């Protein structure tokens, strides 16, 4: 890919830190008890506290939407606000929306199954059906902001967020959009949480109000992160990072491939290790360590973003940018646990 192809000029997020425009104030969060569904004893996760989207984005109506769609609307609005873009002066037919998600609108998909369980397949509730489609959040973002460019929802396993960023950059490169709103996120539902549990992936900290252990599973999380991506050449205002190049693959030697992308030793590299598929947390960290050596600052799992299935790396990036002034390069890295990975090289101004 072309060097300095695109710039990240705006950040918005809805996460356990709350709905925030721009960087996230550094603070430590603890997992919270799950109360949204009956559990056999204490079950904890990093959860987005309930809030009224219209309190953050006036006029927003989200009553019938999956929380993923509602959060995408809020996060995208905050990112556009953070970028300082006057949308009334933008050709909205040239703005793309690219969303990355692991599970899509799991909440309304679950609601549709519930209506089938209660009433049979012939008596299902029509409203959750279209709103449960994986591309519903991206289409609502387009609808709310009147964005008529390409509207894409990526679902790559473990690194949908990174894939979304790569696709968005490709759209800019090929002149198929002038600006892109790139989002990634997932919600935590009972079906998702209990699948993690049945698969034996959860940390002991999910069951016990003890500090997070260093290893041994993860604590699930939820949220949506939105980034505004613009061609670097067209943007004179401040940017959080320039997007230089990206690679993703399903196999091969990740360390070798990413090393070639980096073009040799990069001493000031900050690795933002998105854990993607939760079981891959340690894989991602191991790959990151091998790539970066001992000098790099690795921002990776074991925190609030550990179980944020497909926005993990984005949130890690924001946390890395938030934690202290940095310069040099950042590697956004996601792995799928079975040899797959996505890696993006960001230059931090």
């Amino acid at each position, binding site marked *: *890919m072309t060097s300095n192809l695109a710039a990240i000029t705006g950040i918005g997020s809805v996460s356990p830190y709350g709905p925030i425009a721009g960087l996230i104030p550094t603070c430590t969060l603890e997992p919270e008890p799950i109360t949204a569904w009956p559990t056999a004893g204490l079950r904890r996760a990093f959860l987005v506290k309930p809030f009224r989207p219209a309190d953050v984005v006036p006029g927003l109506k989200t009553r019938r939407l999956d929380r993923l769609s509602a959060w995408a609307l809020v996060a995208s609005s905050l990112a556009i606000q953070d970028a300082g873009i006057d949308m009334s002066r933008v050709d909205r*037919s040239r703005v793309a929306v690219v969303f990355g998600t*692991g599970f*899509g609108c799991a909440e309304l998909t*679950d*609601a*549709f*199954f*519930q209506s*089938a*369980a209660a009433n049979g*397949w*012939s008596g*299902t*509730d*029509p409203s959750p*059906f*279209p709103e449960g*489609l*994986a*591309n*519903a959040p*991206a*289409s*609502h973002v*387009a*609808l709310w*902001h*009147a964005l*008529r*460019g*390409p*509207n*894409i*929802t*990526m*679902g*790559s*396993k473990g690194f*949908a967020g990174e*894939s979304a960023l790569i*696709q968005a950059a*490709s759209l800019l*490169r*090929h002149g*198929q959009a002038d600006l892109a709103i790139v989002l990634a996120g997932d919600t935590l539902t*009972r*079906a998702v949480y*209990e*699948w993690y*549990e*049945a*698969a034996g992936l959860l940390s002991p900290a999910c069951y016990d109000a003890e500090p997070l252990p260093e290893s041994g599973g993860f604590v699930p999380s939820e949220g949506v992160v939105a980034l505004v991506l613009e061609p670097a050449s067209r943007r004179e205002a401040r940017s959080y990072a320039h997007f230089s190049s990206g690679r*993703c*693959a*399903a*196999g*091969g030697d990740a360390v070798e491939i990413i090393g070639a992308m980096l073009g040799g030793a990069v001493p000031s590299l900050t690795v933002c290790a998105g854990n993607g598929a939760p079981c891959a947390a340690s894989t991602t960290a191991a790959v990151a360590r091998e790539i970066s050596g001992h000098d790099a600052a690795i921002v990776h799992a074991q925190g609030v973003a550990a179980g944020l299935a497909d926005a993990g790396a984005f949130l890690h990036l924001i946390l890395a940018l938030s934690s202290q002034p940095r310069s040099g390069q950042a590697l956004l890295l996601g792995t799928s646990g079975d*040899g*797959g990975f996505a890696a993006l090289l960001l230059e931090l101004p």
Partner: protein
Amino acid sequence: MSSGRLLPVSDLRINDPRINDPRETIVVTGIGVVSPYGVGLDCLQAGMLAGKCCLSPTKDVYPGFDGTTAAVCGLPLPANGDSSRYSRSDQMAMLAARDAVENFDRDSAAFRESGVFMASTVAGLSEIEPAIAEDPAAWYRRGSGLARAASYPPAHVADAVGEHLGVRGPRCAVSAACASSAMAIALAANMLLDGAAPMMLAGGSDALCPFTLSGFSSLQALDPEPCRPFDVNRKGLNLGEGAAVLVLETLDAAKARSAEVLAVVRGWAMTNDAFHSTAPQAQGNGLADCMRLCMEMAEVSGDEVGYVNAHGTGTPLNDVAESNAYETAFRGRGRPVPVSSTKSYFGHCLGAAGALEAAITITAVRCGALLPTLRLTDPIESPNVEWLRGEVRREALPLAMSVSAGFGGSNTALIFGSGGFGDGGLRNGRS
């Protein structure tokens, strides 16, 4: 099974000066299909050219459901498939992908580094039962519930294809409702231009299942009888199922391995209506913009597009919006643009529809055969459109467009051209 036994290609040769850089020209070198006609493009092509309709009563396949659908019957399981790990969408995708690369050298470095870009809207939903909503943990403990639920994300289809073929390039999944697999083809083409992989397998797969049958029924979008796209008396859509995978590479790469070029992907474009979650914008402005952008990319005028394979679902709202879009996109054309909906043959295959219709459009170009819409007796009035009906029309077809649209307002258009590059040995050679 697929590309090697296509019916005779039209004699047309394109030496179009606009196709001037083989590194920037994307070509199709393999097509694999699983459809209600069977496995392979040959079955699909023969059935459609014979005017065979695959639609039948839904209750024959899904007892308890009324209406009309088209199912893939007797689906042969992939050779090394594990039925508990793979959903029906996965298995159809694996079969289509294997069909697409049947004659490829799968030991070559280029093939091993191939990327996969698959689309699905159903994915593993077909394997999940309503009981999961009442007690997920109990459902996971039952039988292979945990493995079946793991096939739920659309990404699983791409992973199934990649693992089945043993390729290790980029693996991507896209979900944009009924425009999904056309979008997968467009995005895969972008990735080839980015140099992300030497070859991309792009397409889509979606299985019929109670979830979608019930969902579309609850929206009152289904025609209980065989659908009648673009007819004034249309009542809705019929669901179908299937998968299609196209092998894409640059012309440069295809030439280097003496591959047969089945078609040139001359243009692709994506837009969004930004109008409504489920309803298309009535004037079809987003879709018209999409077609216009696609023609601009292909550097062709409306007069040069010899056929449009329509989205044509048969729903009251879609077909009006779509016909309005044609009026706008092809305004000023010398003669009405020939349009048909091949969903009248085997229904709407949702996330697989765009790729299946891309395969049909390529067949039309290669065979010089314009397929009619079945059961179209009283077409929507649309002066700039020639609604194809009745018999298959035979004529040289240099360029054809395939159009897809979906819930959420997504639109995608693809333009395919003949693969004839003179007599340069591209037709018979295989790597």
